[in-house]
């Protein structure tokens, strides 16, 4: 009985922390530091605006979406771009994990380029 309860307790705690860890952050790019491999985003949450520094994990991808060029193929395809391509003012969405005190991005999707 106690084993079952302990398992349930563990599952609840795991689900709680996991759901807190897997969350996208979207915002407007305020700064790009290729050397430090970071993006500074201005994000709005709960009617407040703040700046978040997103660190690129080794191997993390930055992608934009372009129309498929093959004739007859519908939809969009991903095109990987280097961090230096990203410009201030673009709107991006980053999938991050909280490691230490840092937001570590595994993937950054470019939403709007302007």
């Amino acid at each position: 009985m106690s084993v079952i309860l302990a398992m349930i307790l563990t599952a609840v705690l795991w689900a709680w922390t996991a759901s807190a860890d897997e969350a996208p952050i979207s915002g407007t790019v305020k700064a790009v530091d290729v050397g430090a491999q970071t993006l500074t985003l201005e994000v709005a949450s709960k009617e407040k605006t703040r700046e978040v520094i997103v660190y690129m994990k080794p191997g993390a991808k930055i992608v934009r979406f372009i129309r498929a060029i093959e004739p007859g193929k519908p939809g969009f395809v991903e095109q990987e771009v280097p961090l230096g391509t990203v410009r201030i003012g673009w709107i991006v969405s980053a999938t991050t994990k909280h490691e230490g005190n840092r937001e570590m991005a595994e993937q950054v999707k470019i939403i709007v380029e302007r």
Partner: protein
Amino acid sequence: MAAKLFTSLAIVVLGLLVGLWLVHPPATRANGDKHEEKGGHAHVPAPLEYADVHVPLSVWTDPAMIARGKEIYATRCAVCHGDQGDGKGPAGVALPLKPPDFRDKDGVAEMRDNYWFWRVSEGGQVEPFKGKGSAMPPWKGELSVEDRWAVMAYQHTYSGHDGPHVPWEHSESVAMGRDIFAMACVPCHGVAGKGDGSVGDMLAPRRAPQPRDFTSAEFKFRSTPSGQLPTTGDLFRTLTEGVRSGGGPMTIGLRGHRIMPSFQHMPIEQRLEVLEYVKSLNRGFWERSEVKTVAVPAPPTVTPERLARGKQLYADAECLACHGERGHGDGPSAPTLKDSRELPIAATDLTKPERFKNGAKPADVYRTLVTGLAGTPMPSYADSIETDQAWDLVFYVLTLSNNDRR
């Protein structure tokens, strides 16, 4: 014994955790609150600067506009909103606040056209959407008004509705306003908004003013030229300030100062909602091609010369025929005045600015002179006097109350 104690303790801890989960979901670092995703698309009323942007009826079903919108949608919108309009474009699925599903016919039906235009124009840069983490870009700088209408017309096709996107096709879009109207306005303005509520006659028995008929083209208090419908801002001002006037027994509760109460304590969103319903009673708001307003220039300095010219103009423009030489509303024509319903109507007593129905500030009096009061004998002087002359008259009229007190 120890096993029982452990089991009880585990159950208590588990119960606490589940309770905590329900009351306070796990903190997320993301800016989109996933528990409010649906709320993120709550169709709040468009602000006043967008409230009059009603899409021309023909746009929604015009094949050329829909084709133009499809082209724009494919290049600007589909990456988030999806080629199928389902909100599942490759960029959209990554967003904390997911794009709406345009195939959701109920959700689309609740979106008013001015709300939709506001969202396309301002994107997620305005509240309440900014605070919810919306990544929607503002398109007003890149797409013309017609382009934005076109893209809305194309998005509208996903819902499966093939008529114009207007309140009389989607009554649910004004449901909240209709409920507020039923509670606050029906007694005077009537169930259908025709100004025939059961207490209307008791406000001013057998004489003007009577409650407004919202289905007619006559609206007294406007910033628009004579003969035109008011702006939403005009309606908002009247709703907020009420209408000053003495009245019959039903106005005792309003202390005899107002014939329509002020709704300044009603939350702004509710006032905007009820006005969207009021406008839905009159298709003219959707059929006018553009909304022009009368500009009220900055008032000049008052001088004795200006007041003298105003006094002369007061006589020349025959204001005294109705309002009387000293402004008491007792001019020779006053007893014969009738409104458009053939009800006797009193000329305003200009010595009592607190009774000026359209407001007593210099800008209010100027606006009244230039726009007139539709449905009453008060004409528009827009074509007969110059701007400077209008100010002369305004300042002279405002001195009548001072003179009376001396």
